[in-house]
């Protein structure tokens, strides 16, 4: 019964998302594309934060590297889009393996600080290695070629690109969800609650943290690979530490305890940003107030609060 209602809601949401280009203006097609990409970014972050209990302040490094990998591949190699996305994931996963190797051995605030430090280093490299990254201007002027799989899609068309993003984010989310529900995912939740007990059950906690970190990095890279063609540029802002704050805010806003929380958070974040900036400059102030209220009164985030309320009503 409960699952049926949830599945019905999910089906309606998915149908609504598929229908967006036929009912919404170009403006909202862009908005929803951004929500999906940032939602995947935030969901990948939540594998590390909400599930494994590691607060990373450097997750934008993987997002940004994914976007640079996409731009570089499109400029220099002209690979099909799907293959380029795999390059984005691969580049981000490799970077996550290197950064994670050093970070996962630290706990809590030290972990957070080291991920922040690595994130700043990656930003500095992108900003200063002009011959490859084109410095502060970033990489632009790449053109989208074929999609891959022999499909003939006009990726330059925002409505088409939206559907491509929806399909890829959908598939990636299912994979991430399965990982969260797997035995491995169960171990990650156990590590968040009590890492020492997990090691006394015979598992090397560091290895599990590292694998989670790399998976999260790869999916952040995928999100980055999707954002570069959308923005038509891969720029250092995508790697900036303030970009690392976004998935944290989105995850907390939506609810870190639920798989879909970060997606809800991303939707609320982007929509609020759009609406509030249309009539005031102080979007950050409003966002600050909302976040403060969430953290003080609704710790479980929007989705968590709604689910709790619903359970209460059904009793």
């Amino acid at each position: 019964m409960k699952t049926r209602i949830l599945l019905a809601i999910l089906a309606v949401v998915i149908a609504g998302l598929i229908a967006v280009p036929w009912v919404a203006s170009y403006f909202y097609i862009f908005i929803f594309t951004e929500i999906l990409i940032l939602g995947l970014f935030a969901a990948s972050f939540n594998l590390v934060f909400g599930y494994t209990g590691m607060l990373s302040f450097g997750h934008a490094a993987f997002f940004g590297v994914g976007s640079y990998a996409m731009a570089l591949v499109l400029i220099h190699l002209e690979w099909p889009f799907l293959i380029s996305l795999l390059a984005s994931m691969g580049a981000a996963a490799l970077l996550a393996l290197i950064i994670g190797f050093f970070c996962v051995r630290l706990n809590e605030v030290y972990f957070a600080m080291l991920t922040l430090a690595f994130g700043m280093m990656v930003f500095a490299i992108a900003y200063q290695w002009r011959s490859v990254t084109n410095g502060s201007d970033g990489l632009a002027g790449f053109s989208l070629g074929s999609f891959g799989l022999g499909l003939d899609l006009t990726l330059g068309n925002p409505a088409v690109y939206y559907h491509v993003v929806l399909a890829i984010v959908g598939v990636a989310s299912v994979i991430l969800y399965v990982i969260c529900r797997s035995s491995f995912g169960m171990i990650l939740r156990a590590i968040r609650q009590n890492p020492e007990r997990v090691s006394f059950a015979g598992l090397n906690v560091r290895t599990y943290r590292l694998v989670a970190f790399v998976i999260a990095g790869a999916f952040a890279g995928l999100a980055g690979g999707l954002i570069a063609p959308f923005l038509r540029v891969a720029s250092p802002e995508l790697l900036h530490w303030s970009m690392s704050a976004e998935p944290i805010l989105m995850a907390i806003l939506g609810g870190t305890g639920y798989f879909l929380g970060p997606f809800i958070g991303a939707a609320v974040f982007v929509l609020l940003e759009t609406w509030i900036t249309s009539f005031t400059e102080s979007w950050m102030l409003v966002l600050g107030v909302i976040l403060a209220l969430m953290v003080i009164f609704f710790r479980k985030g929007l989705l968590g609060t709604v689910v709790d309320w619903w359970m209460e009503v059904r009793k």
Partner: protein
Amino acid sequence: MTNPVLTISNLTKRFGGNTAVSGINLDVMPKETIAIIGPNGAGKTTFYNMVSGRMQPSEGSVVLDGKDITGLPPHKISRLGVSRSFQINNIFPEMTVQENVEVVLSAYHGHSRKLFNIASRNTGIQQEAIELLKRLGIDNLKAQRAEVISYGDKRLLEIAMVLATRPKLVLLDEPTAGMTPDETRRTTKLVKSLADSGDYTFLVTEHDMDVVFGLADRILVMHRGEKLFAGTPEEVKNHPEVRRAYLGEEDDETEESNV
């Protein structure tokens, strides 16, 4: 003659100038239950921490089934067959009672490396978890969140988790600490039945003398990090120095816990 499961030689731990455990030797034979007793600060938990890999010994060696495990990290020692409980509750509070056991079983069976199964459909692990909970008499609590069950039930859950790795050697650290008299009786009976089943080899630290004398085949008495005496429960009961040091016939020096 059978070989010991565990051979401890000259095990020593120093913290700065303090010696918490000093030159302990012990052979543990298969299927026997050894109790380690001694006042607070006698070094029992430090001793456990060294055997289970939580602390590096300063000196000495720990040999499990002929393999030197001295100073290995906890997860490796657990893999090799030593499983321990803790004095304070050490569970996964936000998971159900059954999931707590399933985590350990997944680790033991190598399912923890599976990224693309659905954990909640893993019927083999679930059945095994329920059987373990039945053995501890808490299977009626399987669907409860672990943080909400009673203190005594949490301790039983911990024992279920400790047994889930099918250990060659089980270290229980004060299994009845903080329990009500009723819970203590229930737990003692349970550990006794597990010990009598011949499936396990136990090392148990305990404060409650009735529990100790009810359970142990042999007793190691520790005092200020050193072995004071080792023997059968009868011998320990009748040993004058042990009586003086620990069993209530106090002299003025034993009540200081300065170690």
